[in-house]
């Protein structure tokens, strides 16, 4: 199964297929709650345009004002869905194998996601960041030939960003006393924003389980640093653990977007592992 992702083409197709499912989900959710982006919403452009770069740049403000009108914003969310549909059709080869078409669609989708960055840094999450990483790399590598140096660096970039994300997150947790003493998971699960009523109560009653959970998360995330060099069985175990972790955060924390955005990077991690182990002398 791992050798399925030994080529950059198969890896990036798998990455995009998984990521696009998550992007569709988040886009439909945003359409359902488009009131958040309305003039009276918490992400009102009426207010946001008076701060930061738009406030100091009339040119930027004039460029963004039409895009963030409520009706236009909804249309751009629908455009995301159309672009994803075309990408899926191209990936499935229902349309003629048009690499340039896929590259263009990917970069358009990246632009549509980055519009949210231009609007406000509030409301962005890690899934959004990982999706932009994926689309940036995919868009660039699809502009070049299959198996090119850009393709290898592009897929490697996705894998490297994913490993960096896990390791940085693990180290940051290791530096905090509430994670080391086991309070963090019980505390987070007790919040209404990211928590779960039953699990929060249960973990507060069983602090040793929360302590174990905190250290499992810390160690697993930090251990991702070895994933690019791990042998087949260890790699599968680590990625399976990552999948279970993201399933858990989706179920208990509502982070459904993270499941797709981060699992989407796994084919790239596998490709990077395959490429590195073929080069490094001390690996099998």
């Amino acid at each position: 199964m791992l050798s399925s992702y030994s080529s950059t083409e198969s890896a990036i197709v798998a990455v995009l297929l998984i990521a696009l499912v998550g992007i569709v989900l988040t886009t439909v959710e945003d359409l359902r709650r488009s009131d958040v982006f309305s003039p009276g919403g918490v992400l009102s452009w009426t207010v946001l345009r008076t701060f930061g770069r738009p406030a100091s740049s009339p040119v930027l403000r004039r460029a963004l004002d039409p895009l963030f009108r409520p009706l236009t914003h909804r249309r751009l969310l629908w455009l995301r869905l159309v672009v994803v549909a075309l990408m899926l059709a191209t990936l499935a080869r229902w349309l003629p194998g048009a690499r340039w078409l896929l590259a263009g669609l990917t970069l358009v989708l990246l632009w549509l996601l980055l519009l949210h960055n231009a609007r406000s840094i509030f409301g962005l999450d890690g899934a959004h960041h990982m999706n932009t990483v994926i689309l940036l790399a995919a868009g660039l590598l699809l502009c070049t030939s299959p198996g090119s140096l850009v393709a290898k660096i592009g897929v490697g970039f996705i894998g490297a960003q994913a490993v960096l994300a896990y390791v940085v997150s693990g180290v940051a947790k290791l530096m905090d006393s509430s994670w080391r003493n086991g309070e963090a998971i019980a505390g987070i699960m007790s919040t209404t924003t990211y928590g779960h009523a039953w699990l929060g109560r249960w973990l507060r009653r069983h602090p040793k389980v929360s302590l174990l959970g905190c250290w499992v998360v810390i160690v697993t995330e930090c251990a991702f640093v070895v994933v690019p060099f791990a042998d087949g069985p260890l790699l599968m175990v680590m990625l399976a653990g990552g999948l279970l972790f993201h399933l858990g955060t989706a179920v208990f924390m509502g982070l459904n977007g993270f499941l797709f955005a981060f699992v989407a990077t796994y084919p790239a991690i596998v490709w990077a592992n395959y490429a590195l182990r073929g080069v490094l002398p001390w690996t099998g």
Partner: protein
Amino acid sequence: MHLTVLEITAITVLIAHFSLTLAYHLGAKLRILDHLDALSLVPKWHFFAPRPGMRNLYLLYRDRYATGDVSVWRVLHGMDRFRPGWSFIWNPDKRLRKTLYDVLVTLAAEDYTADDATRRVKLTAPYLLLLNHVSSLPRPDGVVATQFLVMEGEAGQTPRKVFCSELHPLCSRRTALPSPPSSPSC
């Protein structure tokens, strides 16, 4: 190996992006990071760390009527309730909750000990976003002013006040006007 201009550009962008992401998380102080961070173009990978959010944040508002009566405080957007069970599949409130969390945390992090704190905070994006939002809510006739309240608390504990806005008059189109405020009386 001959590389085209496009390939060199693509490789440069990817290597630069990764390098800047790594530099950011190593604590490097680079001006380019500040520029990129203004648009959140540098991914932040330290999830729920180093200081995980373990306290609930609540946004409340109340209105004053033309008669002088004041309504009770109302919690907005179900911030005192957990997500429904199906939110692992369908979570349309995800953006709203994340935005409110970011805005309220930013507002709560302000230094309120300085003499000009209140005047300064009223000009910040979080304050104006919340005021604009609260002022735009549908409400019955007769309401002439509104104010919002931010509270925080851990599970099982009584929430404490973090910040209370002044009363802001509402115009006939339900938007707040920048006129001298009434006493906060929070």
